[in-house]
């Protein structure tokens, strides 16, 4: 085989390898991982209306898990949700709606009027931020098995739990889990991730889909 033929066949392959390496190293596009399927659910919100996983399909949803009698244990987590709601315009999500859902695992106490009051103490915008609960078995299945957020009732009726935020895309796929940190830094991180998710939703169409798939393939995660 002549030198010319070898060069002609090797160069394109080398270029492809270099391009792939460059993509993996420089990460021109960042994406959030598609972690797993979020659970389906049927809950009742603070207005005593039904809230289901289908109601939020197509929206980006930030979930957290707590209960109205939580007090100081939830203060930092709630403040993060309040801050994100207030600074949402810093994330460019285009036309996609962003919603907040706080699921209470105190199913005995957190009926709609209690959740309504709880939402009011946090200045939650009811159009954007839902507080919901449901049947005990269903809540356990949704929160513990589905969102993988631990909680357990103590003897005194209070709960021990992991403060966790879960970010879900419009397909119902979990794209971010933020555990064990309830300080303000989560706000910046989650806003940054909302921005990345918004960019993917806006741009991953047509031929650009391949570039975004490449970003997923090369694990171009923030």
């Amino acid at each position, binding site marked *: 085989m002549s030198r010319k033929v070898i060069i002609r066949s090797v160069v394109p392959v080398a270029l492809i390898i270099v391009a792939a390496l460059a993509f993996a190293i420089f990460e021109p596009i960042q994406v959030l*991982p*598609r*972690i*797993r*399927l*979020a*659970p*389906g*659910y*049927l809950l009742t919100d603070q207005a005593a209306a*039904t809230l*289901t*996983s*289908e109601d939020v399909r197509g929206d980006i949803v930030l979930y957290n898990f707590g209960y109205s009698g939580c007090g100081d244990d939830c203060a930092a987590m709630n403040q993060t949700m309040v801050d994100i709601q207030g600074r949402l315009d810093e994330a460019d999500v285009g036309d996609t709606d962003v919603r907040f859902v706080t699921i209470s695992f105190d199913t005995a106490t957190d009926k709609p009027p209690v959740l309504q009051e709880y939402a009011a103490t946090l200045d939650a915008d009811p159009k954007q931020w839902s507080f919901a609960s449901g049947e005990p*078995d*269903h809540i356990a*299945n*949704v929160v513990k*098995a*589905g969102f993988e957020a631990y909680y357990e009732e103590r003897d005194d009726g209070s709960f021990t739990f992991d403060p966790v935020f879960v970010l879900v*895309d419009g*397909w*119902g*796929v979990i794209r971010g889990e933020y555990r064990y940190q309830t300080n303000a830094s989560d706000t910046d991180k989650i806003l940054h991730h909302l921005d990345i998710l918004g960019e993917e939703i806006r741009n991953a169409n047509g031929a650009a*889909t*391949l570039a975004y*798939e490449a970003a*997923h393939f090369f694990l171009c995660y923030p």
Partner: protein
Amino acid sequence: MTVVQRRIALGLVVTLIGALFAWFFVLPRFRPHIFAGAVIQSTQKAPRLELQASDGTTVRMTDFEGKVVVVYFGYTFCPDVCPATLSKLASAVEILGEEAEDVQVMMVSVDPARDTPELLAEYVTHFHPDFLGITGDEATVNRIATLYGVFYQKSDGTEASGYTIDHTSTVILVDREGYLKLVLPFEGTAEQIAADIDYFIG
């Protein structure tokens, strides 16, 4: 026509045939697949599924390792969405031809009160003889549906039809190794579904 002209013409014809061959048979092998559904990169296996088939046997997701499993949650009294989805899945299986031997389509009933295993079997096989209908008690079905991202709720129907059930209408794909890999929207066509299944058949 001179010898040189003849060679040029022959060269052009050969080049054209080569280009057509590459376009239709070679390039598609290298062209990345664009999914109609949402891909999931979970490192966890698909949620545990253990339900009953019409012959009384227990069906587990693990029974189908080595096959691509297509899971749909619906019910036999479903007036529109379920028959439309199952028809599309049947068409997708037909498109796949012999490759469909590596595929198992199953519908989990979200109406265990009315969908007896026998009724379910009769219903799903009406769409395709290899389709499987599975069910269980209400609590088990609810637990499994939740973990597969599916919501369902009884809704008032007509006096003639009885109640209906609002439910998530997505189709879920589990790969040969048992990982939940893809969520397909109701809007997906039979061709798109077949192409996505084909990708996971490999």
